């Protein structure tokens, strides 16, 4: 059953990607609506209040930074062959 469920989406990749993109847009729209309707009173900082979709930007930028900075750091010589410690 699990496999069939996964395969359903895998076989309809275009639809899955469109659905996911729709979901992302929906999230930003909800954030804007929350900002307009005063639903952000739990927010702590200025950026959260006044930048629409702040956490979307934050999430995406964080993810990108983590991937690229970590890989850059790894390729400085931190990543090495598996037999590095073997003599």
């Amino acid at each position, binding site marked *: 059953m*699990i*496999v069939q469920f*996964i395969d359903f989406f895998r076989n309809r990749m275009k639809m899955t990607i469109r659905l*996911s993109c729709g*979901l*992302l847009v929906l*999230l*930003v729209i*909800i*954030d804007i609506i*929350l900002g307009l309707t005063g*639903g*952000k*009173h*739990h*927010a*702590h*900082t200025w950026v*959260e209040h006044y930048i629409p*979709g702040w*956490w*979307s*930007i*934050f*999430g*995406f930028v*964080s*993810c*990108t*930074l*983590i*991937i*690229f*900075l*970590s*890989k850059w*750091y*790894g390729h400085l*010589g*931190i*990543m*090495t*062959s*598996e037999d*590095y*410690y073997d*003599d």
Partner: protein
Amino acid sequence: MIDFWIHPAAILIIGALLLPLVRGSRIVRNCYFILVPLLAFIDVLMMDKGTFGVMQFMDWSLTFGRVDRLSHVFGFIMTLMCMIGTLYGMNTKGIKEIFVAWLYVAGSLGAIYCGDYLVLFLFWELMAFASVFLVWFRGRKQSLSIGYRYLLVHTFGGLVLLAGIILRYQATGGDISFGPIGVDSPSLYTYLIMIGFILNAAVPPFHAWLPDAYGEATVAGSVFMCAFTTKTAIYALARGFAGMDILIPLGVIMALYGVVYAVLENDARRLLAYHIISQVGYMVTGVGIGTEMAINGTCAHAFAHILYKGLLFMGCGSVLFMTGTSKFSNLGGLYTKMPKTFVLTLIGGLSISAFPLFSGFVSKSMIVAAGFEEHLMWAAFLLTLASAGTFLHTGLKVPYFIWFGKNNCSEETWEKAADPPVNMQIAMAVAAFFCIFIGCYTPFLYNLLPYPVHYHPYTAYHLSESMQILLFTALGFFLFVKKLEPEVVISLDMDWFYRKGSKKFMWIARNPIQAFDTAWSELYRVAGLLPLMKISRFWSWFDWHGIDAVVDGSARIFGFFSKKLSWVQNGQVARYLFFMAGGAFVVLVWMVTR
């Protein structure tokens, strides 16, 4: 004090000691495996709050059972995890893993319920010395050296802790009670005790033992190890160091450090180990903030973390158990072969990533919110950034590169891959149930916490915030997934200093020091030993021919005469008469001839 109080650690220790005596069918043994941790769990549930098990030892009053809300929440989750871990590990060959695992959990429970530093130290060391066997039992060539490294690092930590305890004992005039240490006026012993604790919490730069050992431990062993050592340390920090400012930056560094190394990691279990460091970073930050909300958040996150991290280690452990590998570069596309393991591991991944309705959502956010409330904006934002990294790796990278992605499996791996034995599946299902239950029904966890909870995770804004961070992280993942393709590498970490450092030390010992030692020995032999031998030979000769000759010669002369004399004086009257007559004859002749 109630007369009848049983320490849950005692149940596990006695249970472990009786384990070799449990014979009979597999069912009997399995029932015993379930019964002992269950008894310990029931014992924790039935315990009243108060102080128990006070014993007089020499000048000290030792407290084995301080039961309050803080120790209760940790005791609860430790015994619960012991049940789950035992259930998971009980199909392993032999009983030795369960035996040491129970002693290990007993060490953790002993440290949690103790009321003074001496008992704490005793159980602290029990944890290290029991858990190292979970690494050694893996039985690979490198297991032995990794185990020894783990043990040496923990012995070092234990000694630093002991030094702190002794200095504190001296400074306070004999106080060994374990409580808030006075973080406002820290002295040397405060820092020593803190280093002892944060070494076990795997705070950089004292963290490299963790991925080293947890990546190598046995399949069930790592499930136990991921729960107990670091979280017992968090308990100890929460007990003694709440509000210690330095822990805030240390915790934030931890949270990010683990995330960075998780990007580079090729082994699923080592990746999870790095994420322990990251997650424990949140707890360390919570302790550093030290407010009631932050301590609640720390305890809640430790509670949730033990379950979802246990679940993740069980999931990746199942992959290792069935296929023989946990490296992303040797896996991929397994969702058709191990679908149940995939779903259960994904639940762990969603929980650690703080998805709404999963446990991390109601625990992690409490610490971040405590940071915002204390106006520690930089800490709160960096922790949120780290949480994006958590989802990136544990929620996306681990499931993607094991169950989807490019199929890197060898034919043998693919053939062997299947969902694990039923007991492992049940253990994972139990942990998964709690991950969702905690996330959905917050009073269960919140009522266990040390302080009253005034935090509501399920607000529209918090839901919107979390979903945006998580799903836009997912967007980043799928856009840059090529960048994250597994590379067959290892990453150098702080252990480089003692692994390469010890090699350098051995080289120095083998080469310059050995050469100097050899030269010195030769010099000593030529300049010291040879003349000494000559002199002693001369004296030996002199002794033999000079002194001994004189002494022996005199002795021989006396011997000769005494022998002669004894011949004369042998008591025979006839001989005496003969000599008398002879003598008289000689005198007579002399007189006549004169």
